[in-house]
Every structure is written in C-alpha cells, then in structure tokens.
C-alpha cells in the first residue's frame, strides 16, 4: 500500500478528513453495493482522482472485491487515476465541435504542452483532456478551461486563454485550485 496522506488532527481514524466525507456518502447510500458508481464519483470529487488506497478503501467498506471496484472504475471514462495538473483544458470533440475544428485545437494544445489527450505535463502544471460532446453545440467549438465553459474558440484564442490562466497564478505566486473544476464535473 502507498503512504496515506496525513493531515494531522481529524475525526477520521486515517487522519485524512477527506475519508470522512467519503464515509458520509457511504452512510447516506446505506453501504449499498449498487451505488458503487455514486461512491466513486464522491471519492473523485474529494480526492481529485482515484488512488489505489481509495479504491481499496471503497472496496472494503462496500464489501466488494477489489477486482470489482477496479473493473468498474476503469470501465467509465470519467474516472481518473492520476492527480490532475494545476490547470486543465477539456476540448469537446463532439460532432458539432469536430465540424468546426476542435481537432486543430486539440493538436495545437498537444504540441504546445507536449502532452497527449488525457496526459499531464511533467511539471504538473497542465492537463489536456477531451470530452465527447458537452451538449453546448450552439457554441461550437467548446473548450472547458479550468472548469469554465468557453464557446466559439479558435486555436489561437484557446492557446492565449490557457497561457493567460497559467501566467496569472505565476504572478500570484500560488497555484490555482483545480479541485474546483473537478468538483464542477463531479457532485459530492
């Protein structure tokens, strides 16, 4: 098992209060095995991603074999097993966006940051993602930048916006919260 993050004083025996949030959700769903997907959503919402520790924990609490938890988690595209970068761009690659050049945007971002879709830069500053239709086709092409939906974008506009966002927190000297955009996608 990997190390367990320890945040000092907390009501949860693990010392990590985020597990407390997970426990609440487990209780609310009455430890129902049917609600595994809901629980995984909550877990990803509080931790940002699903680490092996978290998957083991969920399996134990729901009395499900790890193979089942792992099998379900890896089946669905929205679950991620790696901590996201400080900033993220999710390019919609639905039909309407595709017809209006979403692919060029993906490729430009991939070239600029040297990552493929689904990957995070080595310095953990930027994650590139793609989505299958965000349902805002009237605004095509659509890119979700750090949780905010931007429509009618082109290649240069997208690059500029990403760079502005990244430059902004360099100026602040801190890193912008990415937990926000995770929380936006996944309800707790």
């Amino acid at each position, binding site marked *: 098992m990997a190390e367990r993050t320890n945040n000092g004083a907390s009501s949860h025996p693990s010392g990590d209060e985020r597990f407390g949030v997970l426990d609440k959700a487990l209780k609310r769903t009455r430890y129902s095995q*049917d609600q595994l997907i809901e629980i995984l959503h909550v877990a990803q919402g509080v931790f940002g991603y699903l680490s092996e520790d978290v998957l083991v924990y969920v399996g134990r609490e729901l009395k499900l074999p790890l193979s089942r938890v792992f099998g379900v988690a890896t089946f669905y595209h929205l679950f991620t097993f790696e901590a996201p970068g400080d900033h993220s761009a999710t390019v919609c690659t639905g*039909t309407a966006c595709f017809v209006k050049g979403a692919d060029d945007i993906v490729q430009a971002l991939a070239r600029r940051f040297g990552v493929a879709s689904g990957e995070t830069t080595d310095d953990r500053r930027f994650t590139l993602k793609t*989505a*299958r*239709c965000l349902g805002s086709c009237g605004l095509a092409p659509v890119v979700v930048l750090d949780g905010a939906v931007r*429509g009618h974008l082109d290649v240069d506009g997208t690059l500029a916006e990403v760079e502005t966002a990244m430059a902004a927190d360099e100026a602040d000297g801190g890193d912008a919260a990415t937990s926000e955009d995770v929380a936006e996608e996944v309800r707790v």
Partner: protein
Amino acid sequence: MAGPIDLYDVANAERDAQAHYRRRAFVCTSTGCNSAGAGAIKQALADVVTEADKTGSVQVVPTGCFGLCSRGPLVRVEARGEEPVLYEHVDDEVADAIANEHLVGASRVDAEVVSLDLPFFTRQERVVLSNAGVIDPDRIEDYVAHGGYRALQAAVETMTPEGVVKVIARSGLRGRGGAGYPTGRKWDHLASAVAEQKYLVANGDEGDPGAYMDRTIMETDPHRVLEGMALAGYATGASQAYIYVRAEYPLAIERLERAIREAKRAKLLGRSVLGSDFRFDVEVRIGAGAFVCGEETALMASIQGERGTPTLRPPYPTEKGLWGQPTMIQNVETLANVPMILERGAEWFAALGTPDSKGTKVFALTGSLENTGLIEVPMGISLREIVEEMGGGIPGGKAFKAAQSGGPSGGCIPAQYLDTPVDYEHLQKLGSMMGSGGLVVMDETTSMPDIARFYMEFCRDESCGKCIPCRAGTVKMHAFLDRICEGVGRERDLQHLESLCHTVRATSMCGLGQSAPNPVFSTLEHFREEYLELLVPDETFNGSSAVSAATTTPGGAA
C-alpha cells in the same frame, strides 16, 4: 404539509401572482446560455430590479432553453399590451440597459434583437418544450400554473391503469430514443408482467455527440419528466423508478433532484401519490461517461453499480430487468410527451405528424448553419424546411453537402434528398435513422470519409469490449478509414473495409456494434467518389512506401 397539495389552489395563486407583474424578463439559464454568461446576467437584472423597482411590479424569471443557442445569452421582455422583445448576445452592458430602461423604465433598448417571427420559431410545434423559456424549472408552482400534474391527478383519481395504457397506445406515440418502438405496446408488456416489484427507468444517458435534446428537456421542465414517469408507473404497476443521467449534465441532475424533492413534499411522488394508494419513488442515478450505457441492458448494469456491458436479449427488460425483475426503459423525451397526451387526448396527439410517426420530435440542430439550437417540429416536416428555413441556410455562401442524423449509429443525407419528410421510416430508407435527434449540417468543406473516420473513432473508443466483432472490428475499420483519409489507402483497403462493415453489423451483440458501420455505409453510398479520390492507385503504389500516417487520436485515453 400533511395532505397532498391542492393543484387548483396552487395554480390559481401562482397565476394571480404572475398577472400582478407589469413586466417580466425571462432569462435562458440552460447550459448553452449559462456557458455564455447567462447566470451573471440574470443576477445583474435581478439586482437592478430589486434596487429600483420599489413597487414589486417587475419580475426576473430564470427559465429553460429558448432554443436559439447560437445567439445566447438570450433575454425576453414581456409586458402587458406590448409585443415581446427578445434580446440576443446580451452582455453586461446590454443587461444593465435592459434592466434600467426596459424593465424599470418602459422603453426598448437599442441592442441586438431577434425577431420572434423567424421561421426558426414560427415553424415549431411545441409539445414537449411548451414550457421552455416560459417557466422557472426550479419552481413547482410555475409548472402547476401551466397545467402541470393535472394529468397525473386525473389519471390517479378517475382512470384505471389499463385505461392509461390504452390512451398511450391509441395516441401512436413511439420511443424517441431512436428505434421508435410503439410506447403503448411496451407499457402493455410491463403492465402484464407479474412480479412483486417492477421498475421504470428513464433513460437520460444522451451520448450521441451533437445531441442535447434530453438534457434540455430535463433542465427546462424537470417536473414534466417526473409527471410522465409517474403516469408510466401508474399505468404499468412500477413503483420504483430511476432516472439515469450522464454525469456530464450537472445542471440537469441538480434540477431533477430539486424537482424530486419538491414533488415529494407536495405528495405528488412518494408513498401515497395525491392521497391515493399508488406508491411511486424516483431516484436519480448518474453515469460516468460510457456511451454504451445508453443501450438498455448496459444501462441496467450501470444502475446496479457494475461495468456497463450489454447482455443478449431476450430476455427483454420487461421480462427480466433490474435485479431480475420486470423493468421498462423509456427515453426522457418519450416520457415528457405523456402528460400532454393524457391531458389533451390520444386523438389530439395522433393528429400531429404523419400516419406512422405521430407527434413531434425535438432536434438539436447544429453544424454549419446560421441558426443553431434546439427545435421541436411536427414529424413529417421536410429536411429542407429545417435546414434552409429554420436553420437559415449555411453561412458564408457555402453549399449544403449533407445532414447527419442519428449520430454514430446514423447516416448522412445528401442534398438530393432534402425534400424527404423527417420520420422514422423515411430516414431509415435513406440509410440514416431518426436517432435521438441530433442533426448536424455539413457544408462543402467537410470531407465525408473524414466524418466516417470521426464516428468510427468514437465507436472504437466507446466499444465496451465484451463481444469480439465490435471490439476488434471497430479498431480495424478505423485503421482502414485512417489509411484512406491519410491518402495511403488502396483499393483493397476499401474492399476490406466494406466487407468488415457487413460482418460487424451482422454479428455484434448490441446496437453499438451493429450500427457502428452505418456512417461508413451511408457516406459510401452517397459520396463514394470522395473515397475513390483518396485512394492510391495500385500501379503507383511501390509497396515499401514510407508514408507515415500521422494520426493523433484525441479521446483515446481512459
């Protein structure tokens, strides 16, 4: 509150309150307009009005989708004795002007305005979307004031379950999820199933790229979906229902959950619906990004917290579904049609549309068009009317090339068939399908083999991997298409592609694999010359050509 609410009292009180306002501003707060900043605009309007309008004679109403998503954010101002005005592309400045001049004052603002006489609006026939842009989706009172839950009350108090099934059967309503199975027949299957527990599932797992009808219905009028579900539950004896929504639709989930809470509090859902002995509970279940979960057996697996892989039918869900019990899965749009059919009668509904496809259909009109957005039209309307009149034609003087319907399971309809009536049978004859309602218009600059590759990549990524024809077939079909699109394909690649398409269609287990070749078939049928132009002639092919197929595969992860 002890007893159920009195719908009549609530409706009257709400109508009186609304009639009291001198001016009302309706702000679209669906996902499309929200993304363009509608939330802030609604707030700005409300702030100015609260500050300046001491008499309380102006109301700002957040509503569901107006439809014309490409021109958002949209704000409509209505006042007694005046023509309504629809402002488009509203920004902070315009919002401020609207609030001060048009709402608090009484003069129209000199800003971009959309004519409400556009064919985009006038050609529509709104049944499912009749409350869109009219009511506040978060207020049950507003829904009730517009006739909501009356059909449920009438059914529970005066009709037998069999009577409700008969009305739906007589109306000719067919499933709006794509296949068009007669709704009345499906209800009858579940009603006649004998079991201790029966389930109803509303399928809101709208995965087709380029389609957002169901999302809009759930966001715009969540109570209508719930009322349709309750009526289906009453008619079939299903007392537990789930509404399965994509996780990508957070706003729809939020509004549905609130609607369920409010309906429960009003005793319109729960242990005793409207004081009767009909019990009906609804829970929201959230997907996690898997297209295949729109397939009904896969969807049920996902509701049970498992991998969303399909199983063979029969047994059909109405015999053996969730936890082995009889289960009926209905598309959200189908259910949203139900309340009005019961209220206005089967004959009223049957008079809309064509003899075989009755009623209306909601389409998400997107792609290369002047006006894109959400429309509800009577079945049988021609594609030409939709594209040229409602869509306003193609921008930049480009030529129409094809309309794609049915998403990755559908096909392309070329210009010579623009006069085809849009209904289940005609679209199928053209090698396309109604699908759930995505309609993407492509102009002359779009390469059709490229579109086929796009959809195949989608199917490859979304194949669940359970059966081999789909798992391996979509990978190979995509590889052939990739070679062709990159200009390194040969005649035999095309032959292999076509033969593989036939195999995958015939042997895949579920609809995803069976229909994955459709975009290839249909583009080949209507645009074969585009494929042929891309092929490398055999005689010039030197065998060891080191052309690298530079391909990137977005969305290939996970």
